[in-house]
């Protein structure tokens, strides 16, 4: 059952160089108990998209169009108070840098109880503390009853990220948005955190939106994948289909760019060029200056995201590329 559905979302920033449309007409959805992976290179709009869903876009940014349907209600039409009640309660968020989201002058226990008190005013202090210890225990912080009185700086990076997860999950949310939750961590710690997220999802049935630039993380975690480029979704498919049947030339290029442990090739199939500046987007298909399959017709209009196989969409007028390339 669909829990969250994003429809035609557009988020714009006013800048010195003119208006920047960071998210431009995005449609996405995620069902209960499922994980939607969003991949794409730096600046393609992943974080702005997730902040838009949480209604955390501040001026000079604004949500210019679209709907964000969450469990039957459009989040964009809620009052600020209603939205605040949802955040941290039914929707949790995990950011890349735990240090910037944890307050250095309070113990992790104080921050956890504070977050829980906001959504449950009747619980006693002792009860909240008990719940805070349980929350830390659930994310496998050893000796939780003691570490609950630690300050964030007394913990390792992996430990702090566990605390962030504990906070995001404290109120049993239906949806968790995790923006690069493991990017700053060592691989061994990353593997532990991803295992933990998967396990907690199995226990609670929460939906996860996982934002990452790491295709390996996507392959391990995502039931469905959206590939973003320059503010738009260019491909959407079930997790395995993106790797087995990549349709958009940008997705194909990403798969060619990654070095693989189990395979050695002479040189990597990098994508030429760089991501365009958001205030100087190419006409027509935004990927065309870097695309190996581009033709003159690619500069005419932005290709719409179309169904190319069952439950598989791509925004490329030359897909499937073998038919075009001949």
């Amino acid at each position: 059952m669909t829990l969250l559905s994003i429809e035609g979302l557009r988020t714009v920033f006013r800048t010195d160089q003119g208006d920047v449309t960071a998210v431009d007409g995005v449609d996405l959805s995620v069902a209960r108990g499922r994980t939607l992976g969003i991949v794409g290179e730096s600046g393609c709009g992943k974080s702005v998209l997730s902040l838009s869903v949480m209604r955390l876009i501040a001026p000079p940014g604004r949500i210019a169009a679209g709907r964000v349907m969450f469990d039957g209600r459009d989040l964009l039409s809620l009052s600020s108070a209603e939205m605040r009640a949802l955040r941290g309660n039914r929707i949790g968020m995990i950011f890349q840098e735990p240090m910037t989201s944890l307050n250095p002058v309070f113990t992790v226990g104080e921050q956890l109880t504070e977050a829980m008190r906001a959504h449950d005013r009747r619980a006693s202090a002792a009860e909240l503390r008990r719940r805070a210890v349980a929350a830390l225990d659930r994310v496998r912080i050893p000796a939780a009853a003691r570490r609950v009185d630690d300050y964030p700086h007394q913990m390792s990076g992996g430990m702090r990220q566990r605390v962030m997860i504990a906070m995001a999950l404290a109120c049993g949310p239906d949806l968790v948005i995790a923006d690069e939750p493991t990017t700053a961590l060592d691989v061994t710690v990353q593997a532990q955190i991803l295992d933990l997220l998967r396990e907690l999802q199995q226990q609670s049935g929460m939906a996860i939106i996982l934002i990452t630039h790491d295709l390996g993380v996507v392959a391990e975690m995502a039931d469905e994948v959206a590939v973003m480029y320059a503010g738009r979704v260019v491909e959407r498919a079930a997790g395995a289909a993106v790797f087995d049947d990549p349709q958009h030339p940008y997705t194909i290029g990403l798969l060619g760019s990654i070095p693989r442990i189990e395979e050695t090739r002479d040189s990597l199939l990098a994508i030429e060029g760089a991501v365009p500046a958001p205030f100087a987007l190419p006409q027509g298909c935004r990927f065309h200056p870097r695309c190996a399959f581009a033709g003159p017709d690619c500069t005419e209009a932005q290709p719409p995201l179309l169904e190319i196989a069952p439950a598989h969409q791509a925004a490329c007028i030359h897909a499937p590329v073998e038919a075009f390339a001949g």
Partner: protein
Amino acid sequence: MTAPLLEVENLSRHYAVRRGLILPRRVGTVRAVDGVSFTLARGETLALVGESGCGKSTTARLVLRLVEPTTGTVRFQGEDITDLQGEPLRKLRRRMQIVFQDPFASLNPRMTVGAILEEPLIVHGLGDAAHRRARVEELLGLVGLASFHAQRYPHEFSGGQRQRIGIARALAVEPALIVCDEPVSALDVSIQAQVVNLLEDLQRRLGLSYLFIAHDLAVVKHVADRVAVMYLGQIVEIAPKDALFADPRHPYTRTLLAAIPRPDPHRERHDPVAGGDMPSPMAPPDGCRFHTRCPFVVERCKREVPALRPWAAGHLTACHRAEDLPAMETARAASLAPAAAKRLALYEARRGRVAAGAG
């Protein structure tokens, strides 16, 4: 074989840790690098891998003589450079250069790219103005940038282009060794691939040696000839690349390999990865430093320090139980699905057609 370009022997660097603002007192010692030995041949790439804080950057700085060692020696082209000072040290700097992780922080924002590339030539008194201009142009060409880029400032470039500038600057004085400290970690995958290809291409053309620091083992698998795995300031395993990936003989190496997320949705889930966090480098565990996290730990490991000992030709490991480790499951060669393989092949064939503009 001729003498190695670089020989590092028993290198250590310890830092005193002090606490207290008014009367700082020594509360301990961080053994950032603790008895590291390796060699690097001409034209070879040795990768240093390991988790954050294991001493990779400190090792690099020691090799470059940017920090002074607590113990040990560094030999470059057969010459002991450990105590070099003054003019000889300045001359040596021409032969060893460094490329950093953060291309932005390492380029002066107020200098044009031309001036940035010319600076090392001036410092080392290489050529007259006309010669230097020609050299700047040549360097830009080498790293896939255009001559008009010389007039631009760093902020006008993308991350990948800035890393190309950093590489061109390192190449300016024709070094024999380039230390690459996480040169692609901050870049997007498509750009990372461009820079990795560039580094390999330059190595082939110029016969460079790389000391390549990275935490991404997939990148290392791609670029390295040999790999040294570090844990808490020490090398725990060192081997030719293929041996290290196919038959790792240290549990920590296996832990790292198991933890890498693979871009293969059909791969079976890895075994649970060694638990726990890295111990504090101020108080490394007794015996084997990895014993607090090691799935193969036995009593002996807690008491006896395992020596780095030969396992096979060029393959050394520091584990008491190297013989007992089970054979690695032969990793299924990542078989791409037919549709993906077909499209990647098409992509490879057509890639040259994209205007080969600088990335």
